[in-house]
């Protein structure tokens, strides 16, 4: 997993609420394709027209926002299915961070497993960022500084954001959970030995 420290770039306002993971990536694409092949299909239901051509109304198809590394969204972004393919598809599209008021719980966890940073800010702040982006198309940039836990708006306003210290550190170091968990090998074995005596019925599956 790549480290995430600081990101500066165009932020594309996709200011809808409840953007679900089915819209981010259709499940059928996860049947035949690999993790790194999903970018072209990210948001396909709203990104393309029925004839397969680009939908010019879709924000990421518009010149200043094409290839934007930051997505601004309404509340409950990534609700719905557990598919981690939603994170892979966003990353395949070049998105490295999302700024939204709230997230689907499973999507939120999946982000941290892959180095995509989900920043939570109040809706009014996300909307102000969107306005500042629209006010200077082509020139405006948003910066996310994970070390200082601030978002810097195109006009230079600094907005503090909260993140769990544990998750922040894992993102800064680019570490996933498994290697850390394996250091608890003995505790896990001890827990299991005790449980086999406390709740034998849990283990009688053979």
């Amino acid at each position, binding site marked *: 997993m790549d480290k995430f420290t600081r990101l500066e770039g165009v932020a594309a306002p996709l200011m809808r609420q409840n953007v679900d993971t*089915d819209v981010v990536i*259709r499940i059928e694409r*996860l049947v035949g394709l690999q993790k790194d092949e999903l970018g072209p299909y990210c948001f396909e239901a*709203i990104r393309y027209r029925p004839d397969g051509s680009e939908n010019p109304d879709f924000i990421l198809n518009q010149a200043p926002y094409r290839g934007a590394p930051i997505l601004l969204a309404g509340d409950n972004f990534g609700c719905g*299915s557990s598919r981690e393919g939603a994170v892979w598809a966003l990353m395949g599209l070049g998105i490295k961070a999302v700024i939204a008021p709230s*997230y689907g719980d499973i999507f939120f966890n999946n982000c941290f497993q892959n180095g995509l940073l989900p920043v939570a800010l109040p809706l009014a702040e996300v909307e102000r960022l969107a306005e500042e982006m629209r006010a200077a198309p082509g020139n405006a940039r948003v910066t996310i500084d994970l070390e200082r836990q601030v978002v810097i708006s195109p006009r230079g306003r600094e907005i503090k954001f909260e993140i769990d210290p544990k998750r922040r550190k894992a993102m800064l170091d680019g570490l996933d959970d498994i290697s850390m*968990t394996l250091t608890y090998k003995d505790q896990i074995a001890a827990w299991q030995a005790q449980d086999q005596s406390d709740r034998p019925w849990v283990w009688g599956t*053979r």
Partner: protein
Amino acid sequence: MTGKTLFDKIWDRHVVADLGGGFALLHIDRNLLHDLSGARALGEVEHKGYRLARPELTFATPDHAVSTLPGRTSETFAPGHKLLAPLRRRAKDLGVRLFDLGQDGHGIVHIIGPELGLSLPGLTIVCGDSHTCTHGGLGALAFGIGSSELVHVLATQTLVQRKPKRMRIDFDGSLMPGVTPKDMILHLIGTIGTAGGTGFAVEYAGSAIRALPLEGRFTICNLSIEMGAKMGMIAPDDLTYQFIEGRDFAPKGAAFDAAVAHWRTLPSDDNAVYDAEHRIDMAKIAPQITWGTSPEHVIAVDKAIPDPAVAPDENRRSAWKAALDYQGLEPGKPIEGTRIDWVFIGSCTNSRISDLRAAAHIVRGRKKAAHVTAWVVPGSERVKKQAEAEGLDRVFTAAGFDWREPGCSMCLASNGETVPPMQRSVSTSNRNFVGRQGPRARTHLASPAMAAAAAISGAITDVRKM
């Protein structure tokens, strides 16, 4: 001293290590794999040089990417075969029990867990599927996880999780005529919204929940994730223990008695405290139908399609407008009478025997409308066999419905079975998202009885009039 909730009792028991900041390393008692994420995750465990920690707590079934065409094999839907073939191979090599197509015990992962007695009260259960909350109907702590978390469980039999807050929802009263558990939970989602439960473990309680048979409890818990709650659960009681007794993997004899004695300690203490509470009056719940593209876009079937002009805020106004546009509906018109093209009765929400009985009860002696295509996809081999033993399959086929093989099918359309573009479907599944049942397909979520009624009349229909 304040008491503990059902959720806290199960969570606390499973903490292997407190990681600080609200995070815990939790032991996982059951890991359920399916074809879409299972083979890939097992492959990754191998690829990264980890060992499968506990094959005896790991089970697999192909459901997402398998055809449900009668007489199907794994090769009927070729892209799915490319996932199932390695799942079969790796499960065999690693000692993971696989319930394969056509075998006794096969079916949708959230149907077979309870059906086989794999899912029990007090267990932590995960699966790479967001509807894992279904198993909470037994009083288990069950939740969906992503692919990376799945690899973590396979390699360590644990998971790093942040403890959620607790929410209690009381359903008081009893079911009105034509109203089912599906209507209860859709009504709740309409009331608190698709993010109303985000960050919470939800416990459903109240007189209406206590009166529900287990199959109805599964339907309620199944839709927890549609209001944002990863975990939904119901305290176990005598109905739960009766449901479990005698099932394949359930404890037997003295072991069963010991288990029941433990399970009786699980329900929330009377003085337990919740971070949020809601109360729903059952008398206010009529049969529900969704009109838009989020499960919170739901109304009673006798109501009018909402007008974005009266939406509570600008965000919702634009969401409602986009939803009506996608669904091809006019605000202000009654939703009843809206012509439909497809009916899908199935999914981990509503494909159990009681669901099929409820649908068959409406269908018996009638014919589907000529222009409607109607599918019944039983949730498992056992549900299918039971329905056939009761003659339900013939009730459906005589009415012109298709009677198919078990699988997820048209709920999420990952197996090539889709509602065609622009066509309107009444579905007993769990999501009406844009493109969920196929590109540009229009979905209305409802109960099995409501779906059956729509198939007969060819339009959205108030089941109470049938």
